[in-house]
């Protein structure tokens, strides 16, 4: 896969994550739990004590995170502006760690899963894997030769 293809895939996945987080945040502020697909306990998860971090609803943090990823992705496509390729793996690692924590909370502590939260864990993991790809590719064949 070319660098550009990876970058575009990165943007698409980040966009899916962003839509997912926005949907969850909108549901949160409307006070209506999202309907569950395939899993059981969306309302349990989204109304649990773990759905907020220092008072900030987790979906809001998700929105900020995915927006950041979109900016990084765009920055990468845009001639690797500010050399973002180096920052991408580290930034996506934050999402990966957060996802591992939230999957743990759902599986072990709450014993309830929310479809949209699992989707977000999936997109975060893919972003991390793509981030590693970008990092490696940049070392071997940079999108633009360093000037």
């Amino acid at each position, binding site marked *: 896969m070319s660098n550009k293809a990876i970058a575009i895939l990165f*943007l698409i996945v980040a966009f899916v994550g*962003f839509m997912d987080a926005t949907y969850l945040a*909108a549901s949160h502020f409307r006070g209506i739990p999202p309907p569950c697909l395939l899993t059981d306990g969306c309302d349990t998860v989204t109304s649990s004590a773990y759905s907020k971090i220092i008072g900030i609803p987790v979906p809001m943090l998700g929105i900020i995170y995915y927006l950041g990823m979109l900016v990084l992705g765009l920055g990468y496509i845009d001639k690797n502006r500010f050399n973002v390729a180096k920052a991408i793996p580290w930034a996506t690692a934050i999402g990966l760690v957060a996802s591992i924590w939230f999957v743990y909370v759902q599986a072990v502590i709450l014993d309830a899963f929310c479809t949209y939260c699992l989707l977000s864990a999936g997109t975060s993991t893919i972003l991390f894997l793509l981030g590693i790809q970008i990092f490696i590719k940049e070392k071997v064949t940079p999108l633009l030769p360093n000037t």
Partner: protein
Amino acid sequence: MPKNIWGIGLAVILVGAIGAMWFAGRDNALPSTDPNDVKNDVSFEITTDDHVKGLPTAKVTLVEFADFQCPACQAYHPLLNEVFAQYPNDLRIVYRHFPLKTIHTTAVAAARASEAANLQGKFWEMHAKLFENQTAWAGKLTNSFFEKYAEELGLDVLKFKADLDSDLVKDKVENSYKDAVALGLSGTPTFYLNGKKIVNPRSVAEFTTLINTELGIPNVE
């Protein structure tokens, strides 16, 4: 690469955000609060699965849909005890779960605790404990309070803990919740007197007036 990649990106993000919010705003969720959808006349089937206080031969049945974490339900707890004391033969009270999960984080857990106690024959004892100590356990994400109450009630705590997590108990609470949603209920407590939904009485006297009417006893002004 187009120069306006940032412009395009921003536009797509904006459209995506609006789309996701629209999607969340569709009327796809629980409970309908349209008063026209609320069922006001229901013939309840009281089964052995129900929590019933009073005699099966009682002429008046009060079905209560309540949430152990709801402060209003707690306020009704002593009131209902007082009302029941006045009609030991003619009134039976049926308690059904309607835990308002979205606003009360531990309402479901409390309802499960009452069901687990029920499996050891102490539903009403746990029911009283939960209401009387509501401020202690409400919102605390631990079962330790419930386990303490179980111990105080002389229950087999190990069995109680296992039952809390059992599908039997979980399903019972969930089914009751779904029934309440299907009735179009949106708040707790909600009372049905002989199958008719009533406006929540604000005092013992208001309850007795309604019950007397059902019993055909003239109310003294």
